[in-house]
């Protein structure tokens, strides 16, 4: 049975019924069969994640694919061998990062002698134990990918401490003078082991950690976590609570796009544009606080619902002000040639690269790749009916800025629709009580949300009211992989902050 024969619908692939396609389909395979199936899936589905989990007999490899047409997800489970005969990244280049993670977490080499990069552990931990592998296994320095800068090129180090208010990361810019030839990224400095910390915690405590995994994507990550827990425990969510979640998700999207504009203003040296965007950003954060109780919308989502209702009057009034300010700002920016010229043609990601690296969110949509889970009514119910996906084709910084602008307009339209829909959003949503999962039997679930940076995924396993395994895959974890591709695309030194601002990723989301 192949993916093509069944038109890419995962439910049929997994042998499920055809009348109602499930949102998540599971397929258990022997390790030897994975390569063939992955080769068939790669052209028709988007690779979303790969990780290892402890199983009854050793480790199990889990691959997650997303069908962007239906919004469905497919999980492939297979035994994880110590050395896979062929690295999966040969078939799925996007999976290379996860192969590196598997080595540092569990000591499993990609196979085929393929070297790995350091993504979680610092280079000084050359011969340490893998972070989660039992026994006395040690990492080997021979497995590391070489870091070589030769000839007339030099590596210009930037980080881990960078500009004021910037997250820590190391960016090694390889250059012979002005043009960028290559870039090395290292983000292990901020790895906090959030997934590992969740094990043994209650769902409420683990949800708290999911939010702090990436503060500028707190709603999206918390929502993906809550949905994973709800899928595992069979919990439903009240329609009004679901709409409240969507409102928060769109408010988060808006303030992040505005923050990206402020960063672009700073990166291009357009101080007036930067200041105007920062005024708008502060307005957005204050609107968040008035409407939903927190500037960054923390502590809103919970398993089974939301903690607070919405101040509809404040939100309705704030949306008018926000829309006027945003439209005025974007019009002025696009009329400023010195600004547009810096964005046009900088940091280009082609559609082919976006496909190959399985990019998500505005970065993919700016390259013409239509991935947006909000399109699927199967995923979101009726909340997003009429949703229009923003898309550009050029793949450069300007295209990403334009996608952001279109998404803000659509978010405001959706929020206004929900606010005026008559749904009783102002009710005080309290936690489902008593918690039906306490003392429950083992269960697992997959949750997702289309966050401001793209698809966030959470695979969660619970038993007895506690988390027994968690895998978080924020959108930033997918898209950082493409930054060096964007930087290599005929850019000069001064383009680096512009490209980074247009991606608007968080190091925290990667270094979870």
């Amino acid at each position: 049975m192949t993916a093509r024969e069944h038109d890419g619908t995962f439910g049929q692939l997994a042998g499920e019924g055809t009348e109602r396609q499930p949102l998540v389909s599971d397929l258990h395979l022997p390790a030897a069969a994975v390569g063939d199936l992955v080769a068939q899936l790669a052209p028709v589905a988007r690779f979303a994640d790969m990780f290892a989990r402890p199983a009854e007999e050793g480790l199990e490899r889990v691959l997650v694919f997303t069908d962007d047409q239906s919004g469905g997800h497919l999980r492939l489970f297979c035994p994880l061998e110590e050395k896979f005969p062929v690295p999966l990244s040969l078939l799925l280049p996007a999976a290379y990062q996860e192969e590196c993670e598997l080595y540092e977490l569990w000591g499993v080499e990609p196979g085929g002698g393929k070297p790995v990069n350091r993504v979680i552990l610092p280079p000084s931990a050359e011969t340490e134990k893998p972070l989660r592998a039992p026994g006395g296994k040690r990492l080997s320095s021979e497995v590391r990918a070489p870091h070589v800068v030769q000839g007339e090129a030099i590596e210009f180090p930037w980080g881990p401490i960078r500009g004021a208010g910037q997250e820590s990361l190391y960016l090694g810019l390889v250059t012979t003078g002005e043009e960028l030839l290559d870039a090395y990224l290292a983000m292990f400095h901020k790895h906090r082991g959030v997934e590992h910390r969740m094990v043994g915690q209650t769902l409420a405590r683990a949800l708290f950690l999911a939010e702090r995994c990436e503060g500028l994507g707190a709603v999206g990550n918390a929502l993906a976590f809550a949905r994973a827990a709800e899928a595992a425990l069979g919990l439903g969510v009240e329609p009004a609570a679901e709409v409240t979640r969507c409102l928060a998700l769109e408010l988060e999207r808006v303030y992040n796009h505005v923050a990206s504009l402020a960063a672009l203003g700073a990166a291009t040296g357009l101080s007036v544009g930067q200041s105007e965007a920062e005024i708008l950003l502060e307005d957005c954060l204050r609107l968040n606080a008035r409407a939903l109780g927190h500037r960054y919308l923390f502590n809103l989502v919970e398993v089974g619902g939301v903690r607070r209702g919405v101040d509809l009057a404040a939100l309705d009034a704030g949306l008018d002000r926000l829309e006027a300010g945003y439209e005025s700002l974007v019009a002025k920016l696009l009329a400023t040639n010195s600004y547009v010229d810096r964005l046009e043609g900088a940091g280009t990601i082609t559609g082919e690269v976006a496909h190959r690296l399985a990019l998500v969110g505005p970065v993919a949509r700016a390259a013409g790749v239509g991935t947006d889970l909000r399109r699927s009514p199967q995923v979101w119910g009726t909340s997003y009916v009429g949703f229009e996906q923003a898309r550009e084709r050029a793949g450069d910084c300007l295209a990403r800025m334009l996608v952001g602008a279109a998404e803000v307009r659509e978010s405001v339209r959706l929020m206004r629709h929900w606010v005026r829909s008559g749904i009783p959003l102002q009710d005080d949503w309290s936690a489902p009580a008593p918690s039906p999962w306490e003392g429950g039997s083992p269960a697992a679930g997959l949750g997702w949300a289309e966050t401001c940076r793209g698809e966030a995924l959470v695979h969660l396993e619970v038993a007895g009211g506690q988390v027994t395994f968690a895998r978080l895959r924020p959108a930033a974890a997918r898209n950082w992989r493409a930054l060096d591709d964007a930087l290599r695309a005929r850019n000069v030194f001064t383009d680096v902050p512009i490209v980074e601002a247009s991606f608007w990723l968080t190091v925290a989301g990667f270094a979870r």
Partner: protein
Amino acid sequence: MTTSGRDPGSPLPPNTANGDLDAAADQLRERSRTVLRRSLHIRTVDTGSCGACESEIRLLSSPYYDFHRLGLFFTPSPRHADCLLVTGPGCRAMDHAVLSAYEAMPAPKVVVAVGACPLGGVFGADRYTRGAITGLVPVDVVVPGCPPSPLALIHGLLLALGRIEERISPPGGEQ
């Protein structure tokens, strides 16, 4: 809001009266003028933050808060810094970078811990993080919050200036 020059149609968030910001700003301006001859230079370091504290720190220089008018500036070099503004739970992989930055700062210097993370309120001490940064560098001022608002940060910087003043002119001691 008179101190920032913003129009009165942009009210502050709930629980924040304009008077609070004005009063704090006036005190901060006066202290930075007398203690540091008009300026305080700040180096920021992220030791594993979720990114929200960084967002609030960036807004300190935005038109709403505009801390440059108070004699406060970010500096890219720790050698020019009077104040180290630290966020995050103290990821161990950042130890070397944080210590290097701190040691490069000239005396008198002050460390401000920003948010719940560096106080140990989010992540505990383990293989990945210290849980709190107090064991790494001497913390003079803590600004709680998750994240602390720009107004809270301005209050924290005001306290930091007081600590620097003590070090320049210890009460009852020699200069």
